[in-house]
């Protein structure tokens, strides 16, 4: 079952050069594409290959290689198969062209990625803030953003009230294991 | 009482002399006509004062009445006779230069002469002759404006008049065959036994259609809208005002003296109602002022015929009231129409441009509709009272129709008043004479309203005198003066 879809897909993709095809199993096929060949591939998949549904665009941050990896997941209802097209774009300008004219849902995925990673998609309908309307800091999902450090600058921590514990225990409540003996709080263990 | 003949003869004489006089001096030609009219009016007034309202007869040429031509002038006839020259004077068409002017004056004189003759004459054939003379004169006057539409309207008018005269002549022939005489008094004596049969009724029908043409009776009045719209406004005023009343006077004489049968009255009522309803409804849809006034005049004359069909002196009084009211109001309205020609919507703002004219129009509209203090209301009230007295099926439907039609009339008249007073810039053709005539008409109307008791008594007297046929017969047959 996996082979004939893979072969059929291989013939199909043959028409676009620069595409490596690694079919994992019947329902998941992975394609690695050059960035400039992606739109042609998507049109091919949508037109001929009955991959009508763009289920998501996800973005992976590779700070070491200085690249963003954009994955376009397209699904076909007839073939019951998901094709993930992976492309790599350089981190610095962080710009890529929008596939909005091929798949309409791309607008929201691109807007979300722009907000979270700072990748700018030319031609996308809107690039404003999507979820983090109150946030004016750097794109938070980038690896170089240190959330904990930002938290320490903007929030202060709760005062430690051990007496609450005594108060609760005095009334018979309270918890069985004291905080420092709790197994999974690694942070407390390696500090003390 | 030979002076009675002069008002008829003088205008005819001057009409023919005018042509040569015109060569002598233009001024003479222009002023001869009005001068003669003044003289005739003076004479008639003098006669009226002399007789003091008592009927008087004049046998032309000394021949005894059944053979010769006799003039019978009771108060009503005299009133109509005076009205002809006076209104002709007031509505004298604007003086044209040279030949056309002379011809127009001549025709006017001809019209006045034959009109006076019709009012006074007591002999049916004589009436027919004067009626034909009148018709011919109106042909010439109506087409005086020279526009293409005027000619078309006049041709139609000629056709219908011709048809009417033919029918009238047939009626007179029938009548002569039955009774052997054409003198109204003698006819009145012979009518009960000779004319009671259907043949008599047929004669009446023919006469009705014949003389009905000029009186805008229903079947033969479709020439009216085009003619009044295209002819000169003074001429239309004259035709609609005086001339139609003369034709109605003749029919009045016939119904009172000769054909006093219920079938005749019923015929009059039906045709009158038809005229009333079609006239007013057509006026409701009319698009320009002269045509609207023409339809309205058909409607009013329809009402007049309905009034005419009412028996007894009270019915006659109602008819006379409506007739006189129409005689007063219609010419004035037509003169106003001279200032405001063109379609109704273009009249917006006329109220601001000439407030007096608009005020007069509103006054006349109120009187036509029959708003209480004005004479129009009392005339309509009399008609309605008589209709109610009859209480037959015909009378009640007539009552309902007259009332319903008044509502339609109120709507289109006051729609126009509303347009007059709506904002808009408007320049009307400035003609002081038209305003003067309309103002005179308004003044007479208000005067009649203020002196209502006196006017109503005079009217009642007039009606009773016209209604007693016995006096008519004895006076004319008894022995001429």
């Amino acid at each position, binding site marked *: 079952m996996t082979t004939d879809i893979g072969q059929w897909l291989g013939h199909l993709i043959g028409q676009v050069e620069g595409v490596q095809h690694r079919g994992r199993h019947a329902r998941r096929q992975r394609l690695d594409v050059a960035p400039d060949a992606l739109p042609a591939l998507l049109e091919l998949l949508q037109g001929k290959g009955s991959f009508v549904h763009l289920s998501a665009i996800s973005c992976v941050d590779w700070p070491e290689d200085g690249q963003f990896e954009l994955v376009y997941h397209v699904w076909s209802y007839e073939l019951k198969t998901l094709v993930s097209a992976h492309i790599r774009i350089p981190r610095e300008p962080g710009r890529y062209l929008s596939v909005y004219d091929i798949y309409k849902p791309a607008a929201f995925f691109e807007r979300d990625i722009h907000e979270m990673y700072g990748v700018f998609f030319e031609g996308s309908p809107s690039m404003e803030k999507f979820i983090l309307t109150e946030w004016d800091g750097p794109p938070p999902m980038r690896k170089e953003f240190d959330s904990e450090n930002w938290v320490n600058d903007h929030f202060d921590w709760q005062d430690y009230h051990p007496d609450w514990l005594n108060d609760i225990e005095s009334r018979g409540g309270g918890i069985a294991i004291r905080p420092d003996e709790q197994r999974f709080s690694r942070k407390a263990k390696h500090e003390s | 009482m030979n002076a009675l003949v002069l008002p008829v003869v003088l205008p005819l004489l001057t009409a023919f002399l005018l042509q040569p006089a015109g060569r002598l001096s233009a001024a003479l030609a222009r002023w001869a006509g009005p001068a003669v009219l003044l003289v005739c009016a003076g004479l008639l007034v003098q006669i009226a004062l002399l007789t003091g309202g008592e009927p008087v007869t004049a046998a032309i040429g000394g021949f005894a009445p059944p053979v010769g031509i006799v003039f019978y002038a009771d108060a009503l006839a005299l009133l109509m006779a005076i009205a002809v020259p006076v209104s002709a004077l007031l509505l004298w068409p604007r003086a044209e230069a040279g030949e056309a002017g002379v011809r127009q004056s001549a025709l006017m004189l001809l019209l006045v002469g034959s009109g006076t003759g019709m009012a006074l004459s007591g002999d049916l054939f004589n009436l027919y002759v004067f009626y034909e003379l009148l018709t011919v004169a109106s042909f010439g006057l109506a087409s005086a404006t020279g526009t293409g539409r005027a000619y078309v309207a006049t041709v*139609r008018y000629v*056709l*219908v008049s011709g*048809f009417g005269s033919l*029918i009238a002549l047939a009626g007179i022939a029938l009548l002569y065959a039955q009774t052997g005489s054409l003198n109204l008094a003698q006819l009145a004596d012979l009518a009960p036994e000779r004319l009671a049969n*259907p043949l008599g*009724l*047929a004669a009446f*029908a023919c006469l009705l*259609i014949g003389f009905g043409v000029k009186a805008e009776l229903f*079947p*033969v*009045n*479709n*020439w*009216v*809208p085009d003619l009044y719209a295209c002819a000169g406004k003074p001429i239309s005023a004259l035709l609609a005002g005086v001339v139609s009343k003369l034709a109605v006077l003749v029919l009045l004489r016939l119904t009172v003296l000769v054909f006093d049968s219920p079938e005749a009255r019923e*015929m009059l009522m039906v045709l009158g109602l038809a005229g009333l*309803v*079609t*006239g007013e*409804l*057509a006026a*409701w*849809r*009319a698009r320009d002022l002269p045509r609207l006034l023409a*339809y309205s005049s058909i409607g009013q004359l329809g009402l007049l015929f309905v009034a005419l069909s009412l028996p007894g002196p009270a019915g006659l009084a109602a008819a006379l009231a409506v007739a006189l009211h129409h005689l007063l109001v219609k010419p004035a309205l037509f003169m106003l129409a001279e200032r405001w020609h063109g379609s109704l919507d273009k009249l917006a703002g006329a109220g601001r441009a000439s407030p007096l004219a608009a005020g007069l129009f509103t006054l006349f509209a*109120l009187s036509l*509709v029959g*708003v*209480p*203090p004005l004479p129009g*209301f*009392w005339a309509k*009230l*009399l008609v*309605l*009272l008589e*209709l*109610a*007295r009859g*209480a037959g099926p015909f009378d009640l439907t007539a*009552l*309902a129709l007259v*009332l*319903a039609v*008044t*509502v*339609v009339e*109120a*709507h289109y008249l*006051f*729609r126009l008043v*509303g347009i007059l*007073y*709506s*904002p808009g810039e408007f320049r009307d053709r400035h003609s002081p004479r038209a305003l003067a005539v309309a103002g005179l008409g308004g003044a007479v109307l208000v005067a009649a309203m203020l002196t*209502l*008791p006196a006017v*109503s008594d005079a009217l009642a007297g007039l009606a009773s005198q016209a209604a007693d046929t016995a006096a008519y017969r004895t006076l004319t047959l008894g022995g001429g003066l």
Partner: protein
Amino acid sequence: MTPLDTLYLASAATLAAMLVLGDWRRAGVLATLMYGVQLALLFTMQRTGSTSFDLSALGFELSWRFDALSWFFAVVTLGTAFFASWYGAGEWLRAYTGRRRLFQSALAANVFAMLLLLGSGDLLTLFVGWEATSWAGFLLMALAGGLARDAALRYLVYAMAGAMALLGALVVLFQAGGSFSYEAARATLAAMAPGPLWALIILFGLGFGAKLALLPLHLWQAAAYSETPAPGSVFLGGVVGRMGLFALALVLVGLIGIPHLQALAVPFTFLTAQDVVAWVAALTVVLPTYTALKQNDARYLLAWHGIGQGGYMLLGLIVGSALGSAGGLLHVINYAATQATLLMVVFGVRHRVGHTDLNRLGGLVARMPLSFLALLLGIISLAGLPPMSGFVSKWMVYSSLIQDGRPFLFLAAIVGTLGTILSVYKLIHNLFLGQLRAEHEQLNEAPLSMLIPMLATATLAFVTGVAPGLVLGWVADAQAAIGLPVIDYTLGGIASPRASLDMLWVVGVMFAGFGVGALLFYGAGGKTHRVHQLDNYAGGHFLDAGMRYHYSDNFYAGLMHLIGGWYRGSFHWLEGAIGSGLSLVAQGAGGWYRAINPAFYLLAASVALIAWVAL
């Protein structure tokens, strides 16, 4: 010079003064004073009196005399005229752009015409007065031009149709009775056979119903009364419609008499003439009120209510019992004061804001508090709730309906009142409550010259509500004048065993209750802190001035889901059908005159004639 002569003279003098001095800056004040003089004259003269002069024309004589009924309606007319012209004398006149002389004289002409109508001694004078009132009303309505002119023209058609029906009835009555006097008419009507009597009732009903705007003939009133300039609309809304009621009372109750109406049965049905008139009145109460509910302009809403309340008066009158007819007549005064107050407030808002579109107003209570107070008193009286006078007269009508055992009429009246309550709340909410718009932030209260008459009529309505006995005296005399059973009343209201009402106690207890409520609220509770209209619950949303956080459009959406479909506008359809039918016939008539070749129909005409003769 009898007192009535002086009254007519004063009224004519007012008209003359307005014709001459109409454009004068102080003309409004002069007119108000003169109406005041007329009112004083009216109060000084006793109820009955006749004029010394009478006109005679064509053998009929026109005579004028006052009886208690006409005196009662004259008081309402002159009172409304006084307040209306006072309202239009101050700043309103300064801001009036139309022709002042024409307006002032139109108003004076209306008052004079109505006094003539009210004083008519016989049927012909009644008709003359009726026509004078119609035409004066037409002049007043057509003043404002444009939309007002079309509405006035539509009114004219209805009024003329009514007048002609009336003229037909008078003429038939004259022939049957021999003279126009009331006594002769009463005799002939008593002895008349059912057939012609039905015809007369229908004709009189059409005639007077056109002005009272009974159901089939009510389409003209809303637009005509709303588009008239402010004082004119106040006067028209307040009292002109009641002339129809006066005439109906005079003819149906005075001349024909309620027992005769009850005896006159509709063939093949168990209904009597009284039922028919009662049901026309009941439907006139319900349908216009629910049309008012859908109006989006305050003036039109109130005008539609004018029609509805007219139905109440006729319903009360035609029920014929002492309580019911007293309620109907009392409602004339109550409603005149109420409608005058409401219209003055609405035109006050229009004077300040420029329009009265209910969907573009709101929150004006902060800027026009006194107008709000007047409107509040007005709507309580219009809805017929206790402290105000509207309640007393409606209560009387309800109690008489209960005592007479007419459940469906009672139900119709109450459903009408509920509809009124719904639409008056929509009026006060959309005008004065809710969010104040940014552009109305700097609005001023209505000018003083408009405020004082507004509050005066509101207080009048309140006083006659608390102590109805003051005006019930007049009502009792009016009942006696047209032969109705007279009501026995106390200062507080009615004290009969079957249904008693003592407004002094009821209102006293209500205000005591309000006092205790205020004590509880201000005493027991803590200090209140006033907050801005944007400090409001909006589901956690931050409100700002730019956002329109206000509900006024399609106010009773829930109710409209159900009864929205029932508004078919069948009367508009009926009117349209008659209009188009008439124009079709007119088309035919016009065609007759446009036929080019006369030969054809001449032949037809002569053949027809000959055939006719041969028959």
